[in-house]
C-alpha cells in the first residue's frame, strides 16, 4: 500500500522548438511505470557504463512529449488525477499533504505545477478543487477558512515572500508540541478564491526575484514553499460547541538541479581558484555522510546536519499521517542527458524514502520464554487430566459443554450469567463456612480446614471448608458441610476440634469414610495432611494451623 511512502512521479516534457529545429536526439522513453534513459553516444566501448540504457521505475511516469499520441500522452488532467486528488482529500481529512517539485529549469516544472491559462497545472487545480468543495459544503454546521503563506529557504535562511513590509528579515524555524513545525513570524493571509492565491503567488515570486538580485543570489538555489492551511470548523448546533480540523497543503519548489552543480554550491564538488578558502567547508558534509552510513539501521548516532531547514521542512511533510508526492520533471533531449540522469537518480532515491516508524523494540526473549513455560504447563495439565479423568468428570464436562452450546446467548450475557451464578454460589458457600479458593488467595493461617482433592489438577485444592468446633458433614440441609453424590448419607460424619486443638473424626454408622486409605468406623484423631474420603469420590485433605502453607502467585 505504501501509505507512508512518498509517491514519486516523473514527467517528460516535449522537445522545444530549438531542439526540434536542431534535430536533437531524444534519449528518454517511458514504458508503463518505467523511465528508460538511452545513451547519447552509441560509439562508446561496450564496457563503458555511459553506453548502457538506464532504467528507473517510479509510482507514475507521465509521458507528455507529444499530444497527438493520444494513448501515451499524459496531460495536466491525468497528472492531477494521479497526484492531486488524493492529496486534496487528505487536506479535508485534517492531515498534511505535500507536493515536491524538482527538475532543471526548462524541464517543464512550472508547466506541471502552475500550467497555463487553458492548461492549468497542479496548483490551480488543487486550489479550485479546494474552494469548490469548501463552498459546496459550507453550511451552518461547518465552515472553512483558507490561509496561505509563502516562504523561501536559501542558504539555511528563511524569508517571508508575502511580508507586506517587504523586509528581508530572516525568520527562524521552530517546533511546537501542539502546533507542530512553524516559522516564527511568517505572515499568513486569508484567501477566498484561487484568484487571491494566484495574485499572492505572483507577488511572492516577484519578491523572490528582487531579493535574489539584491543579494546576488540565485533563485534556482533556493527552495520555495507555498503553504495552504485549511481550517475546517464543525459546529454542533444543539450543544453550541465547535471543533476544528486543520489540514496543511505544502507545495515545495525544490532548488534546481542545474546551476547548483555548476557553482559547486551543493557541496561535494570542490572548486579551486576563488573558492579555495571555502572549499574545505564541505568537509562537514563528507564526515556527516560517513557517520551516517556507518550506523546502518542502528539508530545509535547523532549526526549534526548542516541543512537543518530542509530537514525541518521534510519533517513537516513526512511526520504524521501525511501524504507526500514528488514530481520530477525531465527533458528528453540528448544535450540534457547529465541533468536528466541526475534528476532521475534523485527521484529514484526519493522513492526509497520510507518513514520507518521504528520503535525501539526490546528483545522479546524473556516474554517468549515465559509464555513457553505456560504453554507447557497448560499442555501438561491437559494431558494429565485426560489420562486420569474419571468417567464422571468426562460426563460432567460434556454436559456443561452441551449446555453452553444450547445457550444461544451472547458472550456478555454468558459472562453476566456466569457471574450471577458464581455470586449466588459464593453466598451459599459462605453460609456454609466454605471459602472459594483461587490461585493467588491465601488461606487464613490460623484456621483448620479441609481442602478438596481431585485427579484433575485444575480442580484440585479449589474448595476450602473451614472447620468449626463441631462440624457436621452429610447431604442433608442441616449439615455444615453439605456433600452430595454416591455414597453420602444425609448425616455422614462429624469432626470436632477439642479445646487442646486436637481434631477428632467420628463417622456415622454405616457410612463410607476412609482416612489415609483405611476404612474408619469409630472416632479417630486426625493429623495435619491426613487424607479423607467420604462416599465414593469426595476426597479431602486436612490442614491444621501449625504449619503455614504458602501459595505463590504464578
Amino acid at each position: 500500500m505504501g501509505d507512508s511512502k512518498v509517491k514519486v512521479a516523473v514527467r517528460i516534457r516535449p522537445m522545444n522548438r530549438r531542439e526540434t529545429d536542431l534535430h536533437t536526439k531524444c534519449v528518454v522513453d517511458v514504458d508503463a511505470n518505467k523511465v528508460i534513459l538511452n545513451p547519447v553516444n552509441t560509439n562508446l566501448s561496450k564496457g563503458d557504463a555511459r553506453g548502457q540504457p538506464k532504467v528507473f521505475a517510479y509510482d507514475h511516469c507521465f509521458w507528455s512529449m507529444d499530444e497527438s499520441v493520444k494513448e501515451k500522452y499524459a496531460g495536466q488532467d491525468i497528472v492531477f488525477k494521479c497526484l492531486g486528488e488524493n492529496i486534496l482529500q487528505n487536506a479535508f481529512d485534517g492531515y498534511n499533504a505535500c507536493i515536491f517539485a524538482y527538475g532543471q529549469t526548462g524541464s517543464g516544472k512550472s508547466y506541471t505545477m502552475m500550467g497555463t491559462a487553458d492548461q492549468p497545472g497542479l496548483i490551480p487545480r488543487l486550489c479550485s478543487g479546494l474552494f469548490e468543495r469548501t463552498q459546496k459544503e459550507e453550511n451552518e454546521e461547518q465552515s472553512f477558512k483558507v490561509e496561505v503563506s509563502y516562504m523561501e529557504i536559501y542558504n539555511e535562511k528563511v524569508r517571508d515572500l508575502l511580508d507586506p513590509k517587504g523586509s528581508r528579515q530572516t525568520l527562524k524555524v521552530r517546533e511546537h508540541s501542539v502546533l507542530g513545525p512553524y516559522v516564527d513570524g511568517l505572515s499568513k493571509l486569508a484567501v477566498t478564491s484561487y484568484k487571491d492565491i494566484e495574485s499572492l503567488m505572483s507577488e511572492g515570486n516577484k519578491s523572490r526575484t528582487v531579493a535574489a538580485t539584491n543579494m546576488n543570489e540565485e533563485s534556482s538555489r533556493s527552495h520555495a514553499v507555498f503553504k495552504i492551511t485549511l481550517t475546517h470548523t464543525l459546529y454542533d448546533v444543539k450543544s453550541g460547541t465547535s471543533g476544528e480540523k486543520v489540514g496543511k497543503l505544502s507545495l515545495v519548489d525544490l532548488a534546481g538541479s542545474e546551476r547548483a552543480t555548476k557553482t559547486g554550491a551543493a557541496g561535494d564538488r570542490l572548486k579551486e581558484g576563488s573558492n579555495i578558502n571555502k572549499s574545505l567547508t564541505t568537509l562537514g558534509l563528507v564526515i556527516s555522510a560517513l557517520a551516517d552510513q556507518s550506523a546502518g539501521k542502528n539508530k545509535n548516532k547523532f549526526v549534526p546536519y548542516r541543512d537543518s531547514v530542509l530537514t525541518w521542512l521534510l519533517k513537516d511533510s513526512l511526520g504524521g499521517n501525511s501524504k507526500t508526492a514528488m514530481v520530477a520533471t525531465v527533458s528528453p533531449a540528448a544535450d540534457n542527458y547529465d541533468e536528466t540522469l541526475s534528476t532521475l537518480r534523485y527521484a529514484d532515491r526519493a522513492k526509497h524514502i520510507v518513514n520507518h516508524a521504528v520503535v525501539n523494540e526490546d528483545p522479546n526473549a524473556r516474554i517468549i520464554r515465559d509464555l513457553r513455560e505456560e504453554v507447557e504447563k497448560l499442555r501438561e495439565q491437559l494431558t494429565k487430566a485426560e489420562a486420569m479423568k474419571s468417567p464422571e468428570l468426562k460426563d460432567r464436562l460434556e454436559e456443561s459443554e452441551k449446555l453452553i452450546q444450547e445457550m444461544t446467548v451472547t458472550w456478555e450475557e454468558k459472562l453476566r450469567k456466569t457471574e450471577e451464578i458464581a455470586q449466588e454460589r459464593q453466598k451459599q458457600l459462605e453460609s456454609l463456612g466454605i471459602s472459594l479458593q483461587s490461585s493467588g488467595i491465601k488461606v487464613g493461617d490460623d484456621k483448620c480446614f479441609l481442602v478438596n482433592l481431585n485427579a484433575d489438577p485444575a480442580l484440585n485444592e479449589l474448595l476450602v471448608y473451614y472447620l468449626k468446633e463441631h462440624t457436621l458433614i452429610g447431604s442433608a440441609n442441616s449439615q455444615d458441610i453439605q456433600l452430595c453424590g454416591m455414597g453420602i448419607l444425609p448425616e455422614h460424619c462429624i469432626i470436632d476440634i477439642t479445646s487442646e486443638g486436637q481434631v477428632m473424626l467420628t463417622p456415622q454408622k454405616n457410612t463410607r469414610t476412609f482416612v489415609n486409605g483405611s476404612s474408619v468406623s469409630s472416632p479417630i484423631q486426625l493429623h495435619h495432611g491426613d487424607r479423607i474420603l467420604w462416599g465414593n469420590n469426595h476426597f479431602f485433605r486436612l490442614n491444621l494451623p501449625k504449619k503455614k502453607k504458602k501459595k505463590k502467585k504464578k
Partner: protein
Amino acid sequence: MANVPWAEVCEKFQAALALSRVELHKNPEKEPYKSKYSARALLEEVKALLGPAPEDEDERPEAEDGPGAGDHALGLPAEVVEPEGPVAQRAVRLAVIEFHLGVNHIDTEELSAGEEHLVKCLRLLRRYRLSHDCISLCIQAQRQGFTMLPRPQVIRLRWPPKVLGLQNNLGILWSEREEIETAQAYLESSEALYNQYMKEVGSPPLDPTERFLPEEEKLTEQERSKRFEKVYTHNLYYLAQVYQHLEMFEKAAHYCHSTLKRQLEHNAYHPIEWAINAATLSQFYINKLCFMEARHCLSAANVIFGQTGKISATEDTPEAEGEVPELYHQRKGEIARCWIKYCLTLMQNAQLSMQDNIGELDLDKQSELRALRKKELDEEESIRKKAVQFGTGELCDAISAVEEKVSYLRPLDFEEARELFLLGQHYVFEAKEFFQIDGYVTDHIEVVQDHSALFKVLAFFETDMERRCKMHKRRIAMLEPLTVDLNPQYYLLVNRQIQFEIAHAYYDMMDLKVAIADRLRDPDSHIVKKINNLNKSALKYYQLFLDSLRDPNKVFPEHIGEDVLRPAMLAKFRVARLYGKIITADPKKELENLATSLEHYKFIVDYCEKHPEAAQEIEVELELSKEMVSLLPTKMERFRTKMALT
C-alpha cells in the same frame, strides 16, 4: 625569451585569473559562463604569445592520451630534475597556462577538453615533477582528476539522511567505478609525490601563479609553504571523498581525520566548525566500535570548541557565521549529543557482550571479559600509535586531560557503567539547555529518549531489583509528560516510539515486581495491587500505540503498513500476555481476562493467516500465539466447569 612581450603576458595572465575568479552569479542570467569565456580567451592569447611547446626531445609519449590510458605522470620519478634553461622555463610556463585552460574548461562543463589541457600540462611537466618549481602545479593538475569525474558521480546529498534513513548515500556508483579509480590513481600519485618531495627537497616550492609575477612580487617562503600545504590538505580531502565513493569507508574516515589534523597544524580552522566536524567523525568511530578514536575526536572537539572567541578566526576559515551566539549554543548542544551517543553505545555494547539469551547479566561472560581486560590494556599503546592523533604540545595535553576522565573500554560492572552513565547524563543536561521542548520538539525528545536509554542500560548492570525498578520508573517519569502535549498530527512517529517505550518500561517493572514478590516470604495484597497497576499501565500504553494505527474514522486498518507491522504485532502479543498475567481472586474477572487474552492471540493468528507476509515478521510469537489459541479455550472451559462445580 626576448621575443616574448613579457609585460603583456603577465598582464593578460593576471587579468585572466581575475576573470576566472568572478563569481558565476555576477554573470548575466542567460550567460553564466561569460567571465569564464573571457578568461579563456585571454589564456589562449597568452599561450599564443609564449609560442609553441618545445619539442619533447627525448621520448615522445609512448601511450595514448587520456588520463586513464597513459602511465605518464603517475609513477614516481627517479630523481629531482629542476627545469633549467629557457626551453624548460617556457615549458613550465606553458604548463601553467594549460593547467588554467584545463580548469577553465572543466568549470564550463567541457570535461573532455579540460582533460586534454591537463594531460598536456602534465606532459610538459613530466620531467620536472619533483622540482621545487613544479611540484605544486603538478599536484594541482593531477588533483583535477578528481573534478574530472563525470558529474553524476558527484552525488549531492539533498535529502537529509537523518530524516530519511537513507543508507549508502554515496555508494550507488558502481557502474562508474572505473572512472573513480582513475581519479584515485591521480590523487594517490599526488600524495606519493608530496611525500617524496618533502623527504628529498623539503623547501616550500614555487606557487604556479608566481611564474607570471614580477620578481619583486614573488611570494615569501612562508606564503609558499602555506599555499603548498593547503594544496596537499585538499589533496587528502579529495582522497577522502574518492574513498567514500569507492565505499572504502575506513580509509575515507582516516583521510577526513587527517584533513582535520592538518587544519589544526596549519591553524586553518574555525573552532566551532572544526569541533562539530570532529564530533561528527566520532559517530563514525562509535559505530565501528573504535571507542578510543571516538573518544579522541570528542575530547579534541571539546578542547577546540573551548577556543571559540579566544582565537580570532584566521583568514583561511570561512566567514565567521559561527559568531552568532545561537549557533554557538546549538553546536555546543550537538557536541553534547555526540558524547551522549558515545556513552550510550559503549554501555550497550558491554551489555550485548555480557547478556544471556533473555537479556540478563551472564556471570561467565562477565568474568571472561574481565580476563580480557588486561590484554586490552596491554594493547592500548599500540592502538593509540596507529590512530591519528590531533595536536602537539599544549593542545595535545589538553586533549589528553579530557580523555583521561572517560574510559574507552567497555564497562564490566555497575561501578564502571555508572561512571559512563553519569557522564552521559551530564551531557544530556547540557544538550537540553539548547534543545528545549519549546522550539525544538523533536530534538528535545530525542535527547530525553537517550536519557531514558542510559537509565535502561544502567539497569542491566544493577543487581538489586528494587533499584532496577526505580530506574525504569525514572524512565517513565521522564517520558510520560512528553506524550501529554504532543500533537499526533505532527509527531505521530515519535509519539508511537514513546508509547512503545513507556509500555515496555512498565512491562519490565511488572516483571521485576513479580520476581520480587516471588522472593518474599509473605507476598501481601499491596504488592499484588502494585503488579496489577503496572500491568494496567503497560496495557494502556500498548493500547495507545495500537490506537494510533487507526484511520481518521477510528477504524483499525484491515492491512497494517509494513513499517508498523512488526511493532503492531508485538504490541498485540504483549497485550495478550498482559491480560493473562492479571492477578485476580474473582473467577469471573479471571475468565474475562482469559477471554480478552485469547482474543488478542487470535487476532495475531487470524491476521497472519490473511496476510502471510506478516508471519515471517513474527515467527516465534506467531507459533506461541497459535499454541495459546488452541490451549486457552480448554483452560477457560475447565475454569467455567470449576465455577459451576462448586
